[in-house]
């Protein structure tokens, strides 16, 4: 049901921008869609598996940077290499044109996408194994450390463009006639691609949390030792959720990079990771729809520049205020619950379960 409402809202927003004659808003809404992928993935990890991650911008950047690098790095000098020759026959490598019209040999976006996701999964497994054994401050610091390492590496590595990042990244042709890129002519198409992905992601995640896995996750969250004693393999579930949420973040990174045509080190910065955590917190930890709706509002306002130079301060303030007064999230704060109770007295007591 919420998915249907959400779908209608997506169409309504597009129509509104047409009637309000603000087609340029589509760009920010599209970018918001890709950031929403990170947010719903992180919401699953934080809210349902109870694990904080201050390093999700790292996974976003891993996805974006790998895809950007593979689709722009010219392999022409090595084209006689046996492996590369075989790859270009299978279509994994394609010819592309650079800015100056010169030919170059690069990875096909699909090949780059799959490589980025596979590498993300590998890194998330390697990092997640030991990291998820930690709790509380230790987990927060370890994930923060991971995020910082990714940030410092992209900032200090020449072939990732150092402080400038990578640019001139080609569009991502998903299917013929369906391309993720920032060209104004296909703005509406890109809006629907982005939000189509978010809808797919939400369908996957809501099904997941209402399945056996979801119940196991909730048991981990409320009482990990008890869950363990009941035979729930808590370590395995936590790791799988961590990897899944990392994949969501990396997908957001890949698509947004192709959409923007570039990626810079700021996408990997700690502040970005903190921002994702802030949005999940304000939406309500274990509340996918809440996190998604807050993410849409805040990301859109931030991308449109409504917060000006107070952008980061706004997210810091959100973190403090929410954690002080409504640790369950804005949508579950006592004030809002009180209002809900008044309007539907019968359902009020059960609303915490939603």
């Amino acid at each position, binding site marked *: 049901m919420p998915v249907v409402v959400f779908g209608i809202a997506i169409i309504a927003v597009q129509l509104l921008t047409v009637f309000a004659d603000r087609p340029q808003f589509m760009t920010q809404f599209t970018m918001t869609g890709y950031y929403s992928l990170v947010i719903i993935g992180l919401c699953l990890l934080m809210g349902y598996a109870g694990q904080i991650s201050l390093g999700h911008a790292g996974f976003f950047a891993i996805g974006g940077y790998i895809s950007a690098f593979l689709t722009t790095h010219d392999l022409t000098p090595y084209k006689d290499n046996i492996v590369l020759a075989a790859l270009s026959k299978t279509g994994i490598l394609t010819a592309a044109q650079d800015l100056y019209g010169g030919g170059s040999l690069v990875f096909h976006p699909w090949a780059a996408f799959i490589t980025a996701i596979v590498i993300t999964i590998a890194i998330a497994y390697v990092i997640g194994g030991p990291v998820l054994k930690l*709790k509380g401050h230790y987990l927060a610091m370890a994930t923060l450390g991971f995020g910082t390492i990714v940030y410092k590496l992209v900032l200090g590595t020449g072939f990732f463009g150092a402080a400038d990042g990578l640019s001139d990244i080609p569009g991502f042709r998903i299917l013929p006639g369906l391309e993720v890129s920032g060209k104004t002519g296909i703005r509406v198409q890109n809006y629907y691609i982005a939000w189509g992905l978010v809808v797919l992601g939400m369908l996957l995640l809501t099904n997941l949390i209402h399945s056996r896995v979801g119940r196991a996750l909730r048991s981990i969250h409320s009482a990990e030792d008890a869950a363990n004693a009941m035979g729930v393999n808590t370590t395995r579930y936590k790791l799988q959720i961590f990897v899944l949420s990392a994949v969501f973040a990396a997908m957001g990174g890949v698509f947004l990079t192709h959409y923007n045509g570039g990626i810079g080190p700021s996408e990997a910065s700690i502040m970005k990771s903190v921002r994702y955590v802030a949005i999940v917190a304000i939406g309500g930890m274990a509340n996918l729809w809440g996190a998604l709706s807050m993410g849409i509002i805040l990301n859109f306002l931030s991308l449109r520049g409504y917060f000006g130079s107070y952008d980061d301060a706004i997210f*810091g303030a959100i973190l403090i205020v929410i*954690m002080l007064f409504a640790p369950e999230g804005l949508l579950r704060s006592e004030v809002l619950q009180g209002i809900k109770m008044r309007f539907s007295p019968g359902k009020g007591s059960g609303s915490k379960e939603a």
Partner: protein
Amino acid sequence: MNIELLSQYLVAGITYGTIYAIVAIGFNIIYNATGIINFAQGEFVMLGGMIAVSLHTIMPLPAAILAAVLATMIIGALIEVIFIRWLDNPSVLRMIIITIGISIFIREAALHIWGEGVRALPYFTGTEVTVFSIGDVHISPQVLWVTGVSAVIVLLLNFFFDYTLLGRQMRACSANRDAAQLCGISAKNMVTLSFILSAGIGALAGCVVSPITYVQYDSGTGLAIKGFTVAILGGLGNSTAAIAAGLLLGIIESFSVSLMPSAFKDVVSITILLLILFVRPSGIFGSAEASRLKEF
């Protein structure tokens, strides 16, 4: 590598290591009193340096430093009173997010007050080119200030915790909050005091190191991560071990520059943090049995 270069790296390592150790001690004081890791600890260091630089334009250096330390202590107290004091039994996750929020807030406030510019206090004695040499090793007098002030801080803290009534009350609170309260010690005041103390120590460290490392609105985050690494390396809550761990990390970091580009210097220390967390979260000097009792 010749002896001269070796000792030069060593001096640099000791200087930075001492700074990390002081930040780690700030973490430890609050951790011992509350079980909270204050993610805004690095911001205290930045605030101390920034305020002192601003005040130095209107008053002599020692007065500026004193005023900066006092101002930061007041900020530390305010943070505790406004954000921490009235929370009953908050979850660790909640505390982490609140202190991260506070650190962002202080950083952004600093950005709007002081801008993005890099600032520094003048050298306490001599200038930046003044050196005195022991054999072939050249040492800036400011390095002696850093190590000297750190040593005094540690000695005074030890004295404070071991021999003064207030220090003992704080230790009693961290050892057993309920029992301490039964003895008439106000646990809440002790927590406030721990914030004041760690803010003051951080600010003093910020003043002393600013001629060498400079301060900028966002220099707190990096210091906080290094300080936390050192605190973990030494065993969370153990301030004497933090000094040894700080020197160790500083020296490792300093020598890493000879092996890889200096842009990756931070990566080395964070990798050490991750390895320690994975392999031995109780720290190299802590006992695994004792830390099993703690919540982590």
